[in-house]
């Protein structure tokens, strides 16, 4: 009678029996820099979601009397515009808050596109091998043959400069990273017994690929997604800075910096804050992604 609960208790204590996911989670929890990254990311996500509640003014509200007001700690600043105003009298803080929205939406769509297309292509290449594999990976090589910012610039230059095309361009340039990772993992998993087992009970390819193999490749994929968010925010800002992404008056961080170039001699604050916002958001995703990599995928550690 008494031996039964004893064994379950000792079993629970045995670390071998814990689900590996829990280990990874606790490792991530203990990683301070990763947690700092997650906090920064959460902060930006919350700001983006609650933008209308948080921003003191409308992002596109111009005010003739408040042009180029410095931040509030400056002697000419006022509490009305905490971080000052730009050359049209628009409140910079409000534009930054709405800018978080634009940046996150752009990165979600572009990384989402790359994730879906890249994963499908990688699965097909890794599972079916042969001709299909060579053709798909050759195409990926061709995309990788361009410096990726250049490719994004060229795609937008042809399709026309707007935010949707910028998302599309960034998404296309990111497809190979996902395809390569997924293909590698699928190739590795294909030879394992559980795949043979699934095949022998007559599971269809679709089921084997997406329900049996793919869940086992998730680790590196999650890491890549997080790190891609960081570079997507950076690239979207760069495209907008070059005038190829968000068009005025969209409150986008890169576009805000581009507009501030002409004001560099008169009003440096117009330029400073959007840059800090980009840096912080990207840093947050990178910190979190690095932590995830340490926890989920020790092989990829650099």
């Amino acid at each position, binding site marked *: 009678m008494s031996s039964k609960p004893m064994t379950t208790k000792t079993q629970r204590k045995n670390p071998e029996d814990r689900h590996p996911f829990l280990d990874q989670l606790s490792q991530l929890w203990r990683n301070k*820099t990763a947690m700092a990254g997650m906090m920064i990311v959460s902060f930006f996500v919350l700001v983006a979601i609650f933008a209308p509640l948080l921003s003191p003014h409308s992002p596109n509200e111009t005010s003739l009397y408040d042009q180029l007001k410095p931040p509030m700690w400056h002697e000419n600043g006022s509490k009305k515009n905490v971080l000052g105003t730009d050359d049209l009298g628009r409140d910079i803080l409000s534009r930054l808050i709405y800018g978080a929205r634009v940046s996150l939406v752009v990165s979600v769509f572009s990384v989402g596109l790359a994730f879906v297309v890249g994963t499908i292509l990688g699965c097909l290449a890794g599972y079916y091998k042969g001709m299909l594999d060579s053709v798909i990976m*050759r*195409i990926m*090589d*061709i995309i990788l*043959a*361009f*410096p*990726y*910012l*250049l490719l994004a*610039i*060229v*795609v937008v*230059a*042809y*399709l026309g400069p707007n935010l949707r095309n910028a998302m599309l361009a960034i998404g296309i340039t990111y497809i190979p990273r996902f395809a390569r990772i997924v293909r590698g993992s699928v190739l590795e998993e294909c030879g394992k017994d559980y795949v043979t087992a699934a095949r022998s009970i007559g599971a269809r390819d679709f089921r084997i690929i997406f329900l049996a193999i793919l869940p086992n490749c998730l680790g590196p994929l999650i890491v890549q997604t997080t790190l891609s968010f*960081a570079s997507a925010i*950076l690239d979207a*800002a*760069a495209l907008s*800075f*070059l*005038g*190829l992404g968000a068009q005025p008056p969209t409150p986008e961080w*890169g576009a805000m*910096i581009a507009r*501030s*170039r002409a004001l*560099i*001699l008169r009003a*440096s604050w117009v*330029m*400073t804050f*959007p*840059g800090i916002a*980009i*840096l912080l958001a*990207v*840093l947050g995703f*990178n*910190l979190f992604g*690095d932590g995830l990599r340490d926890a989920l995928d020790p092989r990829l*550690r*650099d």
Partner: protein
Amino acid sequence: MIPTVLGMSIIVFFMLHLTPGDPAELLLGERATEEALHEIREHLGLNEPLYIQYGMFLKRLMKGDLGETIWTRQKVWVEVKQRFPATIELAVAALCIACFFGIVFGIISATKQYSIFDYVSMLGALTGVSMPIFWLGLVFMLIFSVNLAWLPISGRLSVDIELEIITNIYTLDALLTRNWAALKDALWHLIMPAVTLSTIPMAIVARMTRSAMLEVLRQDYIKTAKAKGLSQFKVVYKHGLRNALIPVITTIGIQFGVTLGGAILTESIFAWPGVGKWMYDAVSQRDYMVIQGGTLFIASLFILINLCVDILYAVINPRISVQ
């Protein structure tokens, strides 16, 4: 490599045809005359089926004919040749800065793992990877040119400096002609854009060096070297660094290509008259011939550099070529 180059040319070729609108009008701009439109249609064979057009496009490429620019009516290839030295000067300078500081910081971080220096430099490296360089360039400009007035705000050379042009790489030309005043001035102009462009590669090289060093320092032969009583310096630099550098060199090669692409941002900020600024201007003026030619040029160079990196990798790491 050849299929990649072919694939690249297909992408560049078809982009023009996938763009909404008449290709001839896109190439010549809206104000083109009917004769000019007719002429370019004949010249580029725009009335032929697409596969024949692609064949003609390839044939012209083989002859080195990238077409004419829309605005200046010059051969694209001539313009590339004019501007490329400026870009290569900037990219090489940036890469030298990135390698030197990246490797030094990486080594110190690895030998003093988990020290304050390690944490600070790795956080710095992560910040570098996250840096919007177009913003950093403007911040440098604000601090060093506007506020402190130490460095020139843009361009490659002051107007009052004379320099005999040989290679069009100004620092090299100044050295060759022993024109020290021009050398100083050219370097002065080069510092800010080069440092800006070096930020991301520097951070990546530092991270790579650190991890490669950590890997090597765990090896048995390092223990042997230490046990023999060699000095720390000899162990780290002679036995460790040589082996750790193999992956680092690959990274540097890849970063060289990336730097050429990233030059678009840096060059457009600092008005550096290289290929990047030229392409940026072409994008805003919708000069599709320049975009097409410039893209082909940079992408081919990128492929070539990656090929060299692969070869170099086999040369410095004999284990690869055996396999």
